[in-house]
């Protein structure tokens, strides 16, 4: 079955081509159907392959399609790697992707047919690229998918291209991603230079022979690429702006899949990171700092999607923290649970925005729970999951990361728990302000409030079930032996780290205590935020320190002043001075030189016989001299 792996990216590619080429000729329902069916077909094939991979004695399979690049001794095949890690990501991408496609068929109904088809075309292209990314068996195929998802992110954020602001946001996302791509590319070059190959298996086998310095440099460059793609400090500012795109796009790309590409890449390269402890510390510290920074900003945001965007940045920080302390299974587990509850949160937000007729400011919402019952319940479940309240999924995955962080350095744990408390606070601030209390919008909006139709509520319900039950795939071993099913599934990939799951380096009582502390604190903050914001929603302008948070710590302004303005000034200088004077000068100057030269040479043709004779004599004399004296 795993030799049919090529079908998995093929279906979305076919969907992309059909929707893209026929977009002016097909109806809306047809294009929606093609788009969703393509991803569903991929999901079914992924599921079948999953069952095969789950067997005890499965070996990772490499399925080669063709020779992609060949230069001397370097050979880069276009091949897919079927192993537990890639299959897990396949299921997440195609499963959550399918639900989002179904959701989009209803959410994007207001668009005209060609634009609707364009949306599904881009979405399918995105799924195709993401699948290439996780299936690639070498860094080059991964990079192809990496760039593809960056492109699709640009196309989809700027979907409503007639709006100047949205187009700027799309451009910002793409440019910031390119910075990371550049670092990634340098890393690939270094790897090929050192090992003569880009394939994962071969590189990881030969990795111990390289110097630590080189491995550290490569892993730092790879992480820099992940920083841009997965929105970590310092390249995270594109993600909140990316909320300009349609909400299902935010759900798919900026919550569940694209931003997790960085996590996947680091997890895949764990062999290299294990050899470079410096990089691991950088990854962990950056992740932790990002988690705290983004959570602090989210506390004061008033746009429903911006809160969720900063929440995504923060949760990604947790995942990188997990990777940095060696809890690779925990990080991947959190990717999975985060895909469920964050996609649910975004889709629920979309449902709310639709009901409110396009309003996104939570200060104008309230009491939505009686108008949008299904959305309300699913949103609440997602909030409980992300806050880390047991027994929802977020608790298990976040706790696994925090426990591993405690082992590495108790300070990581303390700061991580502080971030978790902030997470619980801002998400329940969002929940209470939106769904509880009194309705604060206009009477017109109140008339318009209605629960969303089935294509929207069905994915919400499915994702809610997953968000609630998903945690049980990774129950820590202290409860029962072999209970960490996900850990055992991923064990062949993260060989050497499975000990983190089976025998924890801390005593059982310590682990119970850690779990209890994080669960207890999360629950307390949830109740506190619930009470506070349902009674008195935050309507006023922020003051003092709150101002700093509401203005995102002025990071955007800092980048604008330090990087964007000098670059623009430099480009302006090049345009006005260099382009005009130097380059145009050279071209025009060549023309003027020729004209001047010809004016001077024209004097030779005087018509005077004497002049001509003189030239003839001179020529003969020169020939004479050359012949006699200069040629030996």
């Amino acid at each position, binding site marked *: 079955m795993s030799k049919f792996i090529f079908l998995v990216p093929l279906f979305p590619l076919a969907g992309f081509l059909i929707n893209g080429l026929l977009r002016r000729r097909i109806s809306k329902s047809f294009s929606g159907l093609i788009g969703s069916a393509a991803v569903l077909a991929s999901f079914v094939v992924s599921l079948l392959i999953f069952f095969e991979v789950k067997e005890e004695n499965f070996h990772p399979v490499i399925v080669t399609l063709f020779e992609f690049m060949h230069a001397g001794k370097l050979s880069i095949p276009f091949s897919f790697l079927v192993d537990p890690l890639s299959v897990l990501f396949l299921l997440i991408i195609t499963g959550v992707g399918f639900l989002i496609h179904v959701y989009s068929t209803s959410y994007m109904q207001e668009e005209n047919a060609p634009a609707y088809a364009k949306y599904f075309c881009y979405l399918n292209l995105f799924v195709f690229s993401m699948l290439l990314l996780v299936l690639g068996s070498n860094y080059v195929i991964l990079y192809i998918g990496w760039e593809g998802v960056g492109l699709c992110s640009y196309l989809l954020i700027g979907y409503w291209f007639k709006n100047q602001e949205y187009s700027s946001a799309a451009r910002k996302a793409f440019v910031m991603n390119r910075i990371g791509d550049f670092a990634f590319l340098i890393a690939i070059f270094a790897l090929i230079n050192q090992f003569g190959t880009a394939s994962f298996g071969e590189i990881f086998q030969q990795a111990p022979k390289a110097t630590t310095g080189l491995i550290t440099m490569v892993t730092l460059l790879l992480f820099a690429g992940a920083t841009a793609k997965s929105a970590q400090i310092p390249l995270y500012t594109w993600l909140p702006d990316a909320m300009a795109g349609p909400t299902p796009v935010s759900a798919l790309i900026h919550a569940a899949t694209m931003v997790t590409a960085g996590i996947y890449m680091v997890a895949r390269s764990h062999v290299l990171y294990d050899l470079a402890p410096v990089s691991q510390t950088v990854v962990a510290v950056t992740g932790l700092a990002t988690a705290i920074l983004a959570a602090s900003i989210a506390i004061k945001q008033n746009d429903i999607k911006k809160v969720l965007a900063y929440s995504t940045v923060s949760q990604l920080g947790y995942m990188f923290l997990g990777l940095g302390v060696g809890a690779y299974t925990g990080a991947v587990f959190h990717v999975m649970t985060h895909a469920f509850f964050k996609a649910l949160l975004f889709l629920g937000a979309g449902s709310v925005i639709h009901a409110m007729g396009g309003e996104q400011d939570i200060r104008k919402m309230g009491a939505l729970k009686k108008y949008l019952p299904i959305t309300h319940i699913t949103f609440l479940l997602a909030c409980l999951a992300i806050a880390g309240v047991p027994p929802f999924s977020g608790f298990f995955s976040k706790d696994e990361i925090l426990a591993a962080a405690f082992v590495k350095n108790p300070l990581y744990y303390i700061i991580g728990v502080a971030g978790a408390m902030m997470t619980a606070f801002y998400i329940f601030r969002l929940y209470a302000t939106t769904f509880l209390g009194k309705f604060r919008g206009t009477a017109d909006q109140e008339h318009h409030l209605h629960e969303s139709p089935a294509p929207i509520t069905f994915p919400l319900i499915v994702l809610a079930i997953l968000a609630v039950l998903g945690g049980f795939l990774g129950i820590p071993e202290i409860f029962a032996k072999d209970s960490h099913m996900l850990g055992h599934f991923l064990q062949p990939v993260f060989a050497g780290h499975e000990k983190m799951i089976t025998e924890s380096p801390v005593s059982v009582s310590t682990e119970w205590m850690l779990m209890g502390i994080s669960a207890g604190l999360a629950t307390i903050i949830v109740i506190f935020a619930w009470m506070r914001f349902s009674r008195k929603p935050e309507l006023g302008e922020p003051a003092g320190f709150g101002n700093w948070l509401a203005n995102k710590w002025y990071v955007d302004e800092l980048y604008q002043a330090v990087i964007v303005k000098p670059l623009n000034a430099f480009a302006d200088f090049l345009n006005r001075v260099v382009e005009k004077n130097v380059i145009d000068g050279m071209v025009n100057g060549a023309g003027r030189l020729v004209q001047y030269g010809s004016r001077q040479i024209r004097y030779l043709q*005087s*018509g*005077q*016989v*004497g002049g001509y*004779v*003189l030239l003839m*004599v001179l020529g003969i004399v020169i020939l004479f001299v050359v012949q006699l004296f200069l040629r030996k």
Partner: protein
Amino acid sequence: MPINYYIFLSVALFCIGVAGVLTRRNAIIVFMCIELMLNAVNLLMVAFSKMHHAALAASDPNAGINGQLFVFFIMVVAAAEVSVGLAIIAMLYRNTHSVDINFLNRLKH
């Protein structure tokens, strides 16, 4: 006499001829200087032919005859060229009543 004397004389005559061609204004004088150049070359040819004959007389009694033969060719060419050239100058004079070469710059138009 050493060959050098003949060479110097011939070169001097040739240079005088060249200077005359470049400098003089009267077309007929220019023609005379061209004749002077040709005759300088004739002189050199004969001188070299005598030199070769003197050097090689023992082995080959006809050595150096080529130079003197070629002098005849040069003279014939000179005569032909003079006749044509003078005819052209006569036509030019009939049309412009002048043999001043600075005046004869019709090639420009």
